[in-house]
């Protein structure tokens, strides 16, 4: 079963499902089909479909040494990484050797199942029942934090009828505030910002304060992109978090790490070091509309137990989706 928005967000339920001018949640399956169709045409028109290769090798002929090698190749090419690939293929191989599964079709079904199992880890929903719920977006430079926030704000406002306030705590990058302002305008929500170069902590503090004052349901705080290797900047992130907690005890309630789907093995380091600096509650896997498979998210889920919660599939307002482990596993092999 594919995952819907209503599976992702935990709300208090009292709220009407549809407010605003967006499409109602009832239309969701329709829209989902639209998305996957779009994703698929995008993929198929681009390259020697990796999936076709796998399906063929798994389905045709006998399962032999070659089968496993090709399988490894496919997963490596999807950026799953050598360790996770070896683990998955090894397990599948021993299951096949033990006679538990036979035939290419059963094998590929089992494989997809295994991948989805790994991807499905920990808490994979976002609890919006705080008043307000504070969400903080963190991540390496250019991975898609600001864009994701814009899309998320739009969805929360238009689909869930929630009141959203944005906090522009990227006070460093040139025109970062204007960029978020552009998104606030599109999403139709309030934005709190400070002067360029000002303390990100105080902007975040102010955003949460104003969010409470305005009766916002959700406050989303944007932060400057930073490399996980920059100790001082990682410490700054922890400080922003602490400052937010001064306003609301258990806030931020949700810290989302954006990971670019084109990222290779460094993504694992990113997730590890970011989650050491601030507790990361979930991954947003962005730019899945390209040809990159985002396999590193599987390694992150497998090794660090952090689940992907959202995926980015484009640059428009509606290009954000809840993550679905089964679909993802399928896409890794399609």
């Amino acid at each position, binding site marked *: 079963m594919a995952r819907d928005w209503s599976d992702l967000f935990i709300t208090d339920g009292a709220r009407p499902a549809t407010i605003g001018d967006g499409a109602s949640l009832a239309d969701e399956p329709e829209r989902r089909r639209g998305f996957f169709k779009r994703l698929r045409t*995008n993929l198929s*028109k*681009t*390259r020697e479909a990796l999936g076709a290769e796998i399906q063929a090798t798994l389905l045709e002929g006998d399962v032999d040494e070659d089968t496993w090698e090709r399988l490894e*190749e496919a997963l*490596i*090419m*999807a*950026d799953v*990484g*050598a360790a996770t690939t070896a683990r998955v293929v090894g397990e599948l191989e021993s299951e096949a050797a033990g006679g538990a599964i036979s035939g290419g079709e059963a094998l590929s079904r089992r494989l997809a199942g295994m991948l989805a199992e790994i991807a499905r880890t920990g808490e994979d929903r976002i609890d919006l029942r705080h008043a307000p719920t504070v969400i903080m977006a963190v991540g*390496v*430079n*250019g*991975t*898609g934090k600001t864009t994701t926030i*814009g899309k998320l704000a739009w969805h929360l406002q238009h689909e869930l009828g929630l009141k959203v306030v944005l906090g522009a705590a990227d006070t*460093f*990058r*040139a*025109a*970062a505030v*204007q*960029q978020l*302002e*552009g*998104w606030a305008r*599109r999403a139709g929500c309030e934005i709190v910002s400070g002067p360029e170069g000002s303390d990100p902590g105080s902007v975040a503090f102010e955003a949460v304060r104003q969010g409470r004052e305005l009766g916002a349901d959700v406050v989303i705080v944007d932060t400057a*992109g930073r*490399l*996980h*290797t920059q100790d001082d900047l990682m410490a700054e992130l922890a400080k922003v978090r602490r400052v937010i907690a001064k306003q609301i005890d258990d806030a931020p309630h949700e810290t989302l790490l954006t990971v*670019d789907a*084109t*990222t*290779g*093995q*460094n*993504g694992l*380091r*990113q997730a590890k070091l970011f989650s050491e600096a601030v507790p990361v509650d979930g991954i947003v896997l962005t*730019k899945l*509309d*390209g*040809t*990159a*498979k985002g*396999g*590193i998210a599987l390694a992150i889920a497998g090794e660090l137990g952090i689940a992907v919660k959202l995926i980015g599939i484009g*640059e428009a307002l509606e290009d954000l989706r809840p993550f679905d482990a089964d679909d993802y596993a399928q896409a890794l092999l399609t």
Partner: protein
Amino acid sequence: MFDTLSEKLQATLSDVRSRGTLTEADVNAAMREIRLALLEADVNFKVVKSFTSTVKERCLGADVLGKLNPGQQVVKIVDEELTALMGGESATVDFASRPPTVILMAGLQGSGKTTATAKLARYLMTEHDSSVALAACDVYRPAAVDQLVKVGGQVGATVYEQGIERDPVDIARWALDQAKRDGKDVLIVDTAGRLHVDEKLMDELVKIRKAVKPTTVLLVVDAMTGQDAVNVAEQFAGAVAFDGVLMSKLDGDARGGAALSVKAVTGKPIMFASTGEKLDQFERFHPDRMAQRILGMGDVLSFIEKAEAQIDEDEAKELERKLRRNEFTFEDFLSQLKMMRKMGPLQSLLGMIPGFQGAALKNVKVDERELDRIEAIILSMTPLERRRPDLIKGSRRLRIARGSGTSVQHVNQLVKQFGQMQKLMKQLGKGKMPDLQAMMRQGR
């Protein structure tokens, strides 16, 4: 922490020495480690495949009775092949015979184009004394124009922008006219990030290319890119035939295997390295250093090799004598510094020293820029001053600061640090000096 490639190879091949030859099985085992190391560094799977088969050929015929152990021998071959694949010379942009030289920036979303546009402008303004203008052709991403105006302004470049209502192709053409009218030497065209499979936007890029006829097209590639780098590079090469690559975000800890992949599949050189968010964090790309980075730090072999090549045993003895007798001067310091730097970036050198890896290294940050400054300061001293740092006062300081393009504070700081170092060495001299030669032998 995972072990280094050379350690793994040494373990894999530990019993070869007694036998004296590498068997096919030995080589296969070594290739497995190499393959894993390269994949870990994000070198494309297919590139790894062809690369390991080349290396395998060479290893099978290799002599392992030399002074290197078999593991080191294999690493040496890998290093040589990798360096050859990266390309030796560092390439750069061409200048048009009739200005303006036009440089077109292209790449995926968020790869670092806009930042690199300003950095390249700054680089050309300072290194080539060029007058540079920038064209704002990203009309899609919110505040993209504001961002370029801002970073362009910070480096003192002229920014041609027409808001976001016009077609990017028209803006590019208009900007070129402006650049000609204003007599600019260089026009750098910033474009919107685009997916290599987005037909509409790729088509737009082709049109921009036709409109401004760039002297050089640069593809900006994020150093953290994984296996998909080859798809991206091939598609962009097919559409706009880029001339070179600019690797961004090399300041992180990504091994940067994408650089090798892109070079291998397109044959285009990596020209520049973007190494931070600040606009002066930009340099020419050094292909030879990249091979080292892809293989990872802590590479004992290259340390030994380079150290062997650079350190003359007599020189080392003489140095030790001087240190003991506290005759160590700025002159010696400079030659030491130069010798060290010939071996490569200091940060990676530290990683090569056995026992210095892992935790210890994490807290040591070497600023190469700082070393540049130190070198410049010492070079601006007279021979007498280098031998007698106590003479460096008042007007001498000012002269040295001017000569080295630094400040009096910098000169003061260095002289002070040097004094402290001398004191430290004196203390060390009384005790036992660490034996540099022995330390290096340990690595074998």
